[in-house]
């Protein structure tokens, strides 16, 4: 057996879709939307071009100032957030934020959120053809205002409909980001695939809350929030594992990743790329450490091509 050294390792992954679209990443690490700003804050800590891809903070049609504070709470091995999609709106995103990403050499994904089908159509239209973007990530975890507040992502038909519309408009790479607050995530994942999504991302945050027992009121001003961080990882890994068996498009797995071992776990479950969210908030250069840890694992197990382990736990 040849003894592999660090320089022999190949961390590249290719998110090849059924539509013959592909997102090629130098390694599987993708920043998770909303946890990494729009790049420049992290760039003060390290060269973010070393990551696989960067996902921007979620954008909506109009600017939003987000929910009232407190918007963050800590829980056991997790955090709750109720940021409420604070963002300057898609037009300002295009004029102010996109140009700033020009200097980056890694693929940039725009995360889009909407409260109606029309919102998603508008966002897809405005982003179509934007060369700075490698693709878009369609976040289906917002409440469907017209549909009575239920989240789009919990309804396979809505997932299908919106994905299909976006697919008709947007010619780049489309990732559909799914919510875990659902009985069976393979159904929404399949709906996204059938409607033409190039990849499925899972998971967004789990619905949750914390109560301040001294004030006897919910701690978050918004009452509810989304749970992320290490606490949710076992739930996320299971969802990736379940979907891997059913899907024919690649999966971007995320939820609670904080180490190279976690990335490997998601890949073994079936993820082609892996998102890093909450950990960046605690350790801005976590991505670099994680890449090193992945390499160490590859050396220990003498794995030359990281992509060879995708789905290997099945």
């Amino acid at each position: 057996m040849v003894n592999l050294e660090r320089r022999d390792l190949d961390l590249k992954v290719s998110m090849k879709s059924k539509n013959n679209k592909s997102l090629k990443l130098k390694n599987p690490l993708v920043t998770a939307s909303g946890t990494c700003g729009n790049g420049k804050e992290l760039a003060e800590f390290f060269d973010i071009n070393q990551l696989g891809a960067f996902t921007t903070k979620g954008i909506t049609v109009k600017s939003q100032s987000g929910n009232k504070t407190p918007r963050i709470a800590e829980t056991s091995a997790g955090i709750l957030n109720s940021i409420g999609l604070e963002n300057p709106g898609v037009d300002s995103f295009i004029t102010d934020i996109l140009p700033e990403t020009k200097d980056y050499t890694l693929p940039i994904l725009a995360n889009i959120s909407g409260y109606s089908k029309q919102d998603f159509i508008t966002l897809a239209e405005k982003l179509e053809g934007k060369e700075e973007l490698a693709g878009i990530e369609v976040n289906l975890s917002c409440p469907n205002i017209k549909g009575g507040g239920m989240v789009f992502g919990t309804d396979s038909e809505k997932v299908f409909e919106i994905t299909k519309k976006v697919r008709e408009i947007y010619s780049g790479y489309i990732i559909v980001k799914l919510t875990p607050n659902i009985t069976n995530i393979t159904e929404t994942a399949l709906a996204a695939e059938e409607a033409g999504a190039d990849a499925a991302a899972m998971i967004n945050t789990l619905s949750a809350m914390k109560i301040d027992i001294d004030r006897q009121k919910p701690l978050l001003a918004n009452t509810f929030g989304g749970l992320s961080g290490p606490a949710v990882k076992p739930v996320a890994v299971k969802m990736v594992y379940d979907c891997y068996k059913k899907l024919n498009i690649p999966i971007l797995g995320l939820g609670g990743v904080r180490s190279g071992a976690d990335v490997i776990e998601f890949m073994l479950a079936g993820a082609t790329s892996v998102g890093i969210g909450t950990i960046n908030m605690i350790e801005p250069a976590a991505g670099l450490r994680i890449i090193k840890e992945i390499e160490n694992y590859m050396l220990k197990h003498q794995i030359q091509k990281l992509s060879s382990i995708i789905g290997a736990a099945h």
Partner: protein
Amino acid sequence: MFKIITNEEVGPDIFKLALKYDQLPQKPEPGQFFNIKVSQELSDDPLLRRPFSIFDFKSEEKRVEFIYKVVGKGTKILSKLKNGTELDVLGPLGSPFSLNNMNKEINLIGGGMGIAPLFYLAKKLEKQNADLKVYLGAADKSELNFFENKFSQLKADIYLASMSEELTIKGTALDLWLKKLKNKPDFIYSCGPEKMLAAVEKEALKNNIIGEISIEKRMGCGIGVCLSCSCETKTEDKKNKRACVEGPVFELGEVVLDG
């Protein structure tokens, strides 16, 4: 790399933490903070860092000091760490107090742990020959002793108030300030509970006094990526500002306070 060199109780549940560093990305300024991971290397509990304002800074000794109060799990864990412990610390972070007050009359108004960031500020202001008046309040005198001692090493007039006992007066730092305020100061700096800041701001604006406040906002990242710490502004465009990047120091009247 940061190492604990002092972590001792200096008041009821109030600790002084002194850290020695190898190097810093930039020189800390008054009003900035550091974000400290209080859990040890192998533990994720607690997960988030804890932000603390700079109480004092001594570049010759590569030493930065904090005063913190034990209020929950994170500060409790911190209070049990021993000298020599290595800490994972990010900073200095945030925007500092402005410092162009040469020879001016300055009021510092601090309530509770809000006094902590005012000391390093006062040291700098003293160097600018500012005419310093310091108004400090706390629930109990015992919480002020340490601070009184420190501030009295500076060239400054010190006034104290507590809720439990008549000092300069009996009451809050705000009461104290209002009571003692004679001349309109050129500039004020204030830090403390948000309700107090709101009241200070109201009085100041009423009297056309300008100045800055430092606010404590729950933070996720402390580096501007998560928008947990957004503050509504009163500026024209109403664009939110992040307490961890554009703050924690804001001008009087800049952000909406929960009064």
